[in-house]
């Protein structure tokens, strides 16, 4: 069975000056309340000074500061709240699939009639390898996009998100904060590649499932890596990190390294399909195809429904 797929979001990978020029959406209420943070907190990437949207932030007990960083428009038309995390030096938070251990942050939209929180968008993570574990993490600072959906044509009203996260170093801590967003006013700017950090569509990667060999094959166009920030040899590398895929067992956590041949990245990932572990949901092979080696390089969202029959839990 050969299944082809295409990616979720649209914009091409336009890193650099064009995105640097991206301005944060102005909100109606520019009041700033920043709660005190731990004294040893080291802000490694202060929120942009032109952001008036830093309304409520902070968690004084843990190693993370969370701030609102305005609204952006996604390619699909949804509006997303941008939460900026700044993490104390040496500590890290987790991607949607934390890897061997950890847990991703969670968000809950405050009760707001007619509006719902869609699936959060995580940017490209770093890969942390230790003797025992591989983890997909964020350190320093990163931005999390929380798309919300409401009445057609309506701009997001003032709202808040209750966030919780796990932040780890040698040990782990749980942090919580409520981050408030002022109502969106005026035109909402597009998210841009840097903010999305993934799903940089039209990079040309395809994935197929070979049922005979029980393997996923991913092809990526190496020529497209010219858009990456990696130089020379590092630009000619690609790897895949899997999301959490109930019903699919992989040999290891990843990352899976692609081979470069004839300007094509090729990656073969043996899988074991376990419908009994799909938790009653359709089995979808998914993850991120990472071009280059730098955290700021492009990546592409891979999503391949396997159309397996799964039993109800």
């Amino acid at each position: 069975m050969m299944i082809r797929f295409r990616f979720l979001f649209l914009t091409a990978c336009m890193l650099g000056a064009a995105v640097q020029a991206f301005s944060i959406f102005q909100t109606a209420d520019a009041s700033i309340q920043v709660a005190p943070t731990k004294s040893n907190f080291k802000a490694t990437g202060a929120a942009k000074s032109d952001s008036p949207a830093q309304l409520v932030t902070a968690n004084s007990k843990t190693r993370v500061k969370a701030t609102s960083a305005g609204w952006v428009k996604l390619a699909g038309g949804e509006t997303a709240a941008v939460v900026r995390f700044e993490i104390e030096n040496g500590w890290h938070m987790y991607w949607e699939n934390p890897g061997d251990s950890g847990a991703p942050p969670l968000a809950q939209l405050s009760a707001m009639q007619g509006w719902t929180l869609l699936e959060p968008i995580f940017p490209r993570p770093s890969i942390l390898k230790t003797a025992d574990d591989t983890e997909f993490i964020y350190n320093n600072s990163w931005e999390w996009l929380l798309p919300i959906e409401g009445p057609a044509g309506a701009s997001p009203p003032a709202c808040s998100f209750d966030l919780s996260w796990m932040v780890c170093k040698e040990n782990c801590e749980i942090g919580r904060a409520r981050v408030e967003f002022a109502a969106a006013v005026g035109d909402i700017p597009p998210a841009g590649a840097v903010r999305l950090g993934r799903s940089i569509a039209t990079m040309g990667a395809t994935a197929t499932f070979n049922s005979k060999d029980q393997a996923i094959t991913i092809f990526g166009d190496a020529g497209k890596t010219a858009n990456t920030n990696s130089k020379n040899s590092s630009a000619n590398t690609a790897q895949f990190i899997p999301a959490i895929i109930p019903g699919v067992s992989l040999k290891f956590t990843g990352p899976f390294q692609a081979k470069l041949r004839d300007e094509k990245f090729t990656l073969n990932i043996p899988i074991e399909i376990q419908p009994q572990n799909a938790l009653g949901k359709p089995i979808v092979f998914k993850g991120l195809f990472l071009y280059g080696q730098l955290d700021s390089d492009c990546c592409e969202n891979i999503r391949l429904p396997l159309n397996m029959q799964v039993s109800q839990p």
Partner: protein
Amino acid sequence: MKHSRLTALLTGSALLFGAATFAMADDTKKDKKHDKAADTTDTKEKRVKVGEQVPNFSMTDVNGKTMQFSDFSGKTVVMEWVNPGCPVCVGVTKGGLVTKMIADAKAIDPNVVFVMVNSTAATANDPKATATYLAEHKVVANAEVIDGSGVIGKMFDAKTTPAVYVIDSKGTLVYSGAFDDSSDRGSTPGKTNYVINALTQLKAGEKVSPDKTKSYGCGVKYAKSQNG
């Protein structure tokens, strides 16, 4: 005569050289094969997978008492990895989810054995802390095991705390993974506790499903001496 001796000597040398070269080349091939295997396969210790028989192993509890896994032969065994220093582990324990799980499990199978294991090096070096932690939260287990060397944890490939493993009465690992399907790291209980789910299915004579889920929680930081 001299000539034939010389020929024999040269022929013998050539044969020896050829054999040695062949052997060396073969060794190189083997080394390359080994390197390739090391790159592509899991070279770590033998790990027990779902569906496999759990081999016997020794355990030392918080009081220094040694016991064997085979001591629980014929009974269903639930092993849970714990760490008093992990907020997620503390969350499910403090929230009463562990004591409820044990009570619910005993209602299904009065003979079920619970083994709490601490393999996290940083806290395993203080067995009393683990004992106190479990006692404070009224967790009554059949064994409270300290695995400071990480041998047991690595055998089960325990990555997080909490993480649970169910071994049926025949000694087969029938479930590994998360404590439950909580959507918020155990802060609120999930709809399904996977241990109770497994025990219910075992009692009904059914195949355990799901038999593998992704556990959530803090990483088990093993003692560095074991990391190789």
